[in-house]
């Protein structure tokens, strides 16, 4: 591949990163909007209905005015799928994503949220050491997915290294996490769960679970969702039967002596978008 074509492809990855962050910040995916609409229809508590009505009006306003849904525009977690045929070197792919995040920060605009962890100095452009997190896997197409993650819900997420004998207690660990979070993560939430793997893999699986469509759930996920919604925490912790919109679980094999369970909480603004880049 010629140097010029190589540069064009690198630029296309930057632009795809910019575009999917922009889309995610302004417009929720159809399955999330449908879940919020369904919650509004089924809620009987007047306070909860009012909160969901505000959320629906907010979704309409953000789309109409092309502005971010929430002032916490988050940290952009990026997922890349890369085909075997892609000529871009990994270093160039990563640099291209960084450029796309900087571009989105300026153009959407995004709030600069990335700070050095101890000194708390803000980088000003939503990039820094290890930020944005970029997860690369092989796939048939070159795609960029952005999951802008806000802090309010990230801060109440939890990981437990359960005993192998406690597999029956996994649902209680998940429900208890939502109980402890109360109204702080801006419910109704989406609950991403990683079961198994290692300490770090469980957390990655929990976040990846937030990329799954929420219009389908298996029986295990649905039972946990019902238990969460029976608590009555409701939208914003003001009461009601909609505390969570969905529970999504991803699993991996784990060591015979351990049982990691990670719960990644996502606020109602379950923002995600994907762009394909032609190679």
């Amino acid at each position, binding site marked *: 591949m010629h140097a010029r074509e190589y540069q064009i492809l690198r630029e296309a990855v930057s632009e795809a990163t910019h575009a999917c962050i922009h889309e995610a910040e302004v417009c929720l995916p159809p399955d999330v909007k449908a879940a919020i609409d369904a919650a509004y229809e089924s809620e009987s508590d007047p306070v909860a209905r*009012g909160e969901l009505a505000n*959320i629906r009006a907010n979704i309409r*306003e953000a789309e109409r005015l092309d*502005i971010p849904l929430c*002032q916490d525009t988050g940290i952009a977690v990026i997922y890349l799928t890369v085909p075997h045929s892609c000529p871009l070197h990994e270093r160039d792919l990563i640099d291209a994503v960084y450029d796309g995040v900087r571009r989105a920060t300026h153009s959407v605009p995004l709030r600069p949220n990335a700070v050095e962890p101890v000194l708390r100095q803000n980088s000003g452009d939503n990039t820094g050491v290890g930020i944005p997190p970029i997860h690369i896997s092989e796939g048939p197409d070159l795609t960029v997915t952005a999951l802008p993650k806000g802090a309010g819900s990230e801060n109440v997420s939890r990981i437990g290294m359960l005993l192998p004998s406690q597999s029956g207690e996994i649902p209680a660990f998940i429900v208890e996490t939502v109980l402890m979070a109360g*109204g702080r993560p*801006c419910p109704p939430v989406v609950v991403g769960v990683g079961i198994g793997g290692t300490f770090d893999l469980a957390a990655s699986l929990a976040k990846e679970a937030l990329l799954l469509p929420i219009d389908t759930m298996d029986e295990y996920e649905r039972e946990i969702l019902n238990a969460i919604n029976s*608590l*009555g925490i409701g939208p914003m912790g*003001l009461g009601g039967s909609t505390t969570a919109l969905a529970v999504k679980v991803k699993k991996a094999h784990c060591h015979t002596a351990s049982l990691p369970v990670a719960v990644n909480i996502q606020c109602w603004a379950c923002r995600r978008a994907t762009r394909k880049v032609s190679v």
Partner: protein
Amino acid sequence: MKIRTPLGDEILTLRAGDSVLLSGTIYTARDEAHLKMMKDGIPFDPEGAVIYHCGPVIQENRIVAAGPTTSARMNRLTVFLIDAGIRCLIGKGGMGKEVSDSLRGRAVYLAFTGGCAALAASHMKLTGVFYPELGMAEAIWVIEVTDLPLVVGIDADGGDLFSRVDAEARRRYLAWKQGVEV
């Protein structure tokens, strides 16, 4: 119920869970502005005034996004405002007992839906600023609001919707867990 600033005794009849549409002037304030007001005094007339826990996104003198921030961070920084005549706090997530006690017979806490930054901005017009040196998120922005849709979270009679819901959720969780384990 519709209310308009400056607020008076009409807010004393509000009860936790009531819906309210607020119009008039509100002042944004987060951690830094509270600390500065404690030290230097309140830069506006606090009688009947409204404080909004919010760090907005402002672009060219226009409010782009202005959702509420977590009020509990201001728990230890709030009572002096109520003592000075502030009648209403707006934020998300509720506040501690120290604050709800100080509201008794004097003021209310209203909840605005978390994350609804675009909706908030559509009800607002920027009219001024105090402490701009604190930066965009921490300055006190003076905002004119029209029919901002809010819910009474803590009323002036000690009613606290957040702690009521939280206590009930804890009770239901224990009952569910017992049922699962039996």
